[in-house]
């Protein structure tokens, strides 16, 4: 039976005519989970847990974190299943397992669905149903609202869709405390506002790819200059927002220094993207902001993790 299903190749051939059959390796299935995104999700969800100083067993917290990661991976898998046709058209994504013919679309759909339902159910059993509901909402938001509705329909796709990527700290906090506080909502807002300048910096460089696939990214719809202005506006919002945890009393001295310097770095990067509009300097400025934005977010959350996880928290505002 499985030999038969492995030999039915019509769906794979739709994306790669040379694929005779999908005989995906384990690593191909792992790639469907978008491991790099999963790392960011694990990290931000962990910070959402740690700032709450939970009293739950570390085993429960660990299993919850694992399920949040699996749920995020499942939504990435469903996204790749839905987007296989446009992934095949872009150089950045053409080698993904489905467009490359290594995994059949239906295999990816089944894999994503099993992991989605499994991760939500186990999170509910391990922690609580508020966290499970939030994880289910995150998966549906990414796979359905973002991938199926927004991505091909509006230039605001990653602005609204960014909510899915921003939710893990809230899910993490809910998993270990049973409630959601303003602290994790602020972390949500930081990731939410960080998303547009981060993705649009990449979109400025890859606009040709997106145009080929017919995805209405901001540079393709509003033009590069308007995108650059919006990057500056979002960064102007992001830099002070990064300091909000300090004002709210859960970001200490270490975090304050990271947020202040990192915010200035983001602003400098955004201004460079705004200024340099031609040739290689333009590309370097955009990729520089894209790379620095990842470092900025990682350092912000690492600051909170170190302060709260290792007892180094010293309040700035007493």
């Amino acid at each position, binding site marked *: 039976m499985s030999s038969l299903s492995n030999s039915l190749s019509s769906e794979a051939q739709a994306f790669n005519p040379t694929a005779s059959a999908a005989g*995906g390796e*384990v690593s191909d299935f792992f790639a469907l989970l978008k491991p790099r995104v999963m790392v960011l999700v694990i990290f931000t969800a962990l910070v959402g847990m740690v700032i709450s100083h939970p009293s739950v067993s570390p085993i*429960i917290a660990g299993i919850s974190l694992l399920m949040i990661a699996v749920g995020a991976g499942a939504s990435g898998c469903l996204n790749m299943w839905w987007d296989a046709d446009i992934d095949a058209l872009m150089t950045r994504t053409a080698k993904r397992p489905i467009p490359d013919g290594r995994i059949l679309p239906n295999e990816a759909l089944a894999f994503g669905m099993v992991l989605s339902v499994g991760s939500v159910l186990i999170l509910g059993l391990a922690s609580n149903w508020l966290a499970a509901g939030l994880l289910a909402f995150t998966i549906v938001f990414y796979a359905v609202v973002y991938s199926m509705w927004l991505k091909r329909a509006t230039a605001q796709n990653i602005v609204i869709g960014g909510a899915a990527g921003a939710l893990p700290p809230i899910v993490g906090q809910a998993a270990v405390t049973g409630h959601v506080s303003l602290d994790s909502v602020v972390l949500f807002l930081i990731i939410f506002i960080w998303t547009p300048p981060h993705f649009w910096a990449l979109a400025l460089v890859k606009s040709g790819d997106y145009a080929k696939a017919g995805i209405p990214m901001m540079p393709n719809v509003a033009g590069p200059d308007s995108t650059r202005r919006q990057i500056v506006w979002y960064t102007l919002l992001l830099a002070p927002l990064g300091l909000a945890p300090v004002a709210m009393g859960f970001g200490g001295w270490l975090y304050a220094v990271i947020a202040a310097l990192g915010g200035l770095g983001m602003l400098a990067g955004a201004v460079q993207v705004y200024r340099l509009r031609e040739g290689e300097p333009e590309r370097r400025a955009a990729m520089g902001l894209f790379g620095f934005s990842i470092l900025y977010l990682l350092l912000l959350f690492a600051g909170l993790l170190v302060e709260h996880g290792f007892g180094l928290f010293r309040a700035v505002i007493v």
Partner: protein
Amino acid sequence: MIDPNIQIRPLTPDEERARRKRSIAIALTLGALVILFFVLTIAKLGPQILERPL
């Protein structure tokens, strides 16, 4: 009901090797799930797991 128009061919050695690896991964995942549920039960119930009416 299998569509008679579908052509069936045997798996290549590479495909068979990939299938074997997938099977092992599924077995390991199932084993991990058994351990996960066991640990979860102990962590949730604690010592009370032994307190049950006979």
